[in-house]
């Protein structure tokens, strides 16, 4: 399957409807977090997933105008002894309606199974240990997802604040083996690399050099801010200069890139305003066009 070469997108949030009404023509696609558009009534409930009317109106409006991409937060692919097949099947139904170009989630665990109808939510996405046991388990889930939803599935690199000792693989070796052996691509979050560089001293360019960049299909960019001596992936307004520099470096090495998505948290809309959003999109487009306009990636893929 040939996946479309899209361009620049934005992650949808509740502050965006008015902006989109005026400026949607600046965007090549919109990325949504599908979990925000429904209410999960819990296992065993009929229907289990109840679409939220107000949000669905927005989604229908967007879907008539630009392509959609899905970025899940609820697969929790790293949870041991847990896999929510109903969730994946509902995503397939969403895809049938909205024809997502691809979908993604995080290389982490968030949900923990309980005996009740709702899972326990750990509150933050916790990176998986990069061990053989996890590689095997995640690989099987990826196969199921890909068999169920016939579009590319991407996994996003983590932000981490603590490190596990004695792991079987480095993160890049783990991801490379996962995407080499299973039908999976990479969502490279450039801001996450920047966060890890500041907090953990990780070298972001080395990470990019080590990663199988041919498997990178999407990149995320964002801003952050400081909290109690840490730099947080808070999506706090515009991207810092280091992110633009890293984006340029990463895009130059990603021949199969299909889209760059700007993420911001809705509470930072007053900081960005329309002009600020337009500026972030323009800067991302400059990087995209530098490497992809003359030689579109899909033609080389």
């Amino acid at each position: 399957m040939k996946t479309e070469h899209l361009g620049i997108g934005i992650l949808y949030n509740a502050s965006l409807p008015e902006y989109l009404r005026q400026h949607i023509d600046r965007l090549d696609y919109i990325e949504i977090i599908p979990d925000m558009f429904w209410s999960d009534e819990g296992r065993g409930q009929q229907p289990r997933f109840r679409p939220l009317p107000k949000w669905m109106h927005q989604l229908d409006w967007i879907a008539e105008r630009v392509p959609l991409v899905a970025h899940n937060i609820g697969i929790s692919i790293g949870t041991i002894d847990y896999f929510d097949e109903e969730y994946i099947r509902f995503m397939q139904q969403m895809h049938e309606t909205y024809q997502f170009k691809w979908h993604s989630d995080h290389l982490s665990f968030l949900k923990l199974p309980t005996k009740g109808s709702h899972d326990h939510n750990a509150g933050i996405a916790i990176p998986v240990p990069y061990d053989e046991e996890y590689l095997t388990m995640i690989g099987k889930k990826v196969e199921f997802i890909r068999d169920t939803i016939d579009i590319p599935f991407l996994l996003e690199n983590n932000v981490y604040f603590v490190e596990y000792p004695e792991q079987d693989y480095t993160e890049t070796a783990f991801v490379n083996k996962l995407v080499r052996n299973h039908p999976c691509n990479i969502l490279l979050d450039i801001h996450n690399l920047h966060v890890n560089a500041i907090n953990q001293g990780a070298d972001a360019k080395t990470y990019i050099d080590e990663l199988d960049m041919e498997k990178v299909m999407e990149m995320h960019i964002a801003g952050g801010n400081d909290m109690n001596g840490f730099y947080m992936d808070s999506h706090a307004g515009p991207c810092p200069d280091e992110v633009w520099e890293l984006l340029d470096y990463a895009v130059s090495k990603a021949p199969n890139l299909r889209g760059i998505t700007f993420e911001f948290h809705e509470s930072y809309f007053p900081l960005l305003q329309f002009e600020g959003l337009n500026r972030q999109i323009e800067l991302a487009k400059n990087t995209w066009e530098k490497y992809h306009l003359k030689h579109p990636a899909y033609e080389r893929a």
Partner: protein
Amino acid sequence: MSARDFQLAFASLIASPQTCCELLTAEGPFFSRFDLSEKEKLRLRAIVRQRGVSACCSLYRMNRVTPVYSQLSNTCALLKDKLIPLIEEFWQYLTKPSLQFREEVLEFGNFLMNKINVGAIGLPYLKEVLQLEIAMNELSYLPEGEYRMLGFEHDIFFILQALAEGKLEEAVVPYSAKRYKMYIKDDRVEMEMAEDLLSV
């Protein structure tokens, strides 16, 4: 079972700085609650000694308070510095959250309403604002056409306006017993007066 318990143990550390302290000072009782391999114990010991664990705990608290703060914003504004102790008490009570906005908001709303009803919290107008915000939260998950009937003893619009302007404490809020039909139309919350309960 071991890897599953490792994930539960890690999540319990993130959810509670007190549990982190327990692991640092007396690991036996902490480890006795989980079935862990020696390697997993080593990892948990290492994690809890890294400064980043405090960032994980802070993120957990921020993410967990967000549904309540965003959906019950006026209630939170009325509670002021009582909010955090109440939230922490609620978290002791609901230890395995789904973090689904609706459940978290409804659970906290009910927890708070029980406290109000038994007189444990006696802030003026809190009950009226809370019932309004609980109803708005419920309606936001329902199809248009659904509605809630709400009764107020004071002018709820006056209360909300004064709260938004930071003038509620010095305001003289008019007594105004009324019932309203609340519903959502064209993505907007509408309130329609049902009947006067009292003629003042």
